[in-house]
């Protein structure tokens, strides 16, 4: 797949500081419809902050993020509507523990899209089937394994039929034997043409599914390109030393 789709996300001059700590120091980037972008880089480099600025969980200190041309601004009247189209999957799942698995999937469609309970459940069952957890519809999140939780979290985000999915280190909190089941679901999403931005430490996965890899270091995009370019022929010294560290492990 190449990045020939329309521009889905347009990021211009993005800066983000937490107090005196400047985490993002000027990021410009376009993400196209249907594109799968993996974001790699050392911890503390600003990868997650970059991702969280896309759906405005973090408000930029300067610069703009537009999704489908709409400015993502916490104080905008339509920010809730804009977020409906941007699904997010978190490192620690963040399932709603007081709701059943099915209720986790139906709460947003029924509250936001005014979908009927039955219709939302039908969509929910389809999605649970897709992530291989149809039998867990009535379970409480706390009874699931990490891998199962993350698959439910992906299904929950998909229930809103988003045009863009953000993944914030979705396998980092998982036991090693559960990483595969989550990556499989993400792989199939990518295959279907979902626009995805994935912050990950799974280099093999990034190489396999990405159309483009961004290497973020010290708050800027230090290098970007196809997986072959970034992984096999890194130009930047910092990319080289980062890859040398993570790939030898």
């Amino acid at each position, binding site marked *: 797949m190449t990045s020939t789709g329309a521009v889905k996300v347009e990021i211009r001059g993005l800066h983000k500081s937490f107090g005196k700590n400047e985490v993002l120091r000027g990021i410009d980037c376009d993400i196209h419809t249907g594109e799968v972008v993996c974001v790699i880089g050392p911890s503390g480099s600003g990868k997650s902050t970059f991702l969280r600025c896309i*759906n405005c*969980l973090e408000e930029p200190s300067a610069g703009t993020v537009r999704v489908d041309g709409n400015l993502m601004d916490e104080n905008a009247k339509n920010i*809730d*509507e804009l*977020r*409906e189209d*941007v*699904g*997010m999957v*978190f490192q*620690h799942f*963040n*399932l*709603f*523990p*007081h709701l059943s698995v099915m209720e986790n999937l139906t*709460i*947003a469609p029924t*509250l*936001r899209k005014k979908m009927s309970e039955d219709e939302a459940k039908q969509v929910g069952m389809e999605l649970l089937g897709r992530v291989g957890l149809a039998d867990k519809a009535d*379970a*409480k999140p*706390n*009874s699931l394994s990490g891998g199962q939780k993350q698959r439910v*979290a992906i299904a*929950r*985000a998909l229930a*809103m039929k988003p045009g863009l999915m*953000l993944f914030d280190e979705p396998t980092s909190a998982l036991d090693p034997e559960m990483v595969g089941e989550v990556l499989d679901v993400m792989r199939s999403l990518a295959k279907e043409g979902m626009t995805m931005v994935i912050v990950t430490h799974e280099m093999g996965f990034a190489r396999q599914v990405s159309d483009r890899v961004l290497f973020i270091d010290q708050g800027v995009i230090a290098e970007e390109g196809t997986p072959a370019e970034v992984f096999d022929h890194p130009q930047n010294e910092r990319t080289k030393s980062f890859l040398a560290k993570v790939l030898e492990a």
Partner: protein
Amino acid sequence: MDFFELLKESLPMLTQGLVLTLQLAFISLAFAMVIGIVASLMGMSKNPVLRAINRVFVAIIRGTPLLVQGFFIYFGITGLLGIRISAFAAGTIALSLNAGGYLSEIFRGGIQAVDPGQREAARSLGLSARQTTWRIIIPQAIRICIPSVVNQWCITIKDTSIISVIGLAELTKMGQTIIARTYRSFEVWIMVGIMYFIVIWLLTLLARFVEKKVSLDD
């Protein structure tokens, strides 16, 4: 007079006292829950004036003894304003404000103890701030709060005995009255203690049942 004769003779008065204790406790706790909710919302408000009012209120409640609060309301305020209120009304006001102050801190703590990731997940799905608060945060905060709230209820039920000094014939006062007549301190205080104990014990059973019902596990 053996123990059972004493019990038989004391029971009507003690029961009468217990009824007043329960009335005082339940009415006060009902008001206290409302005061606690309102005060905790003020404490978490964006408005600095509301936050300051909450902080001063909680500081006064925590910083002074219940007994002083009761005397202040029953004698102090009424004297200053030249009005008279019943001991029951004064006791209810004192206990409501006192428990309300502690409950407001419990509620605030419960809400702030909900994982911030819950709010982020809800907002990322498009839920509004209000929907997130009521559908995601509050239900979890309530579960977190239950043990501390029940604890406060137990404390307030027993604190009614402190309020008896302003002249309320509740359970403890009734015990004193009986002892003054019979000189049977040992047995009467055991009876009074058991009556408080049973009330608290029943409440604890109920709380445990509710906690199990709303548990986050299967």
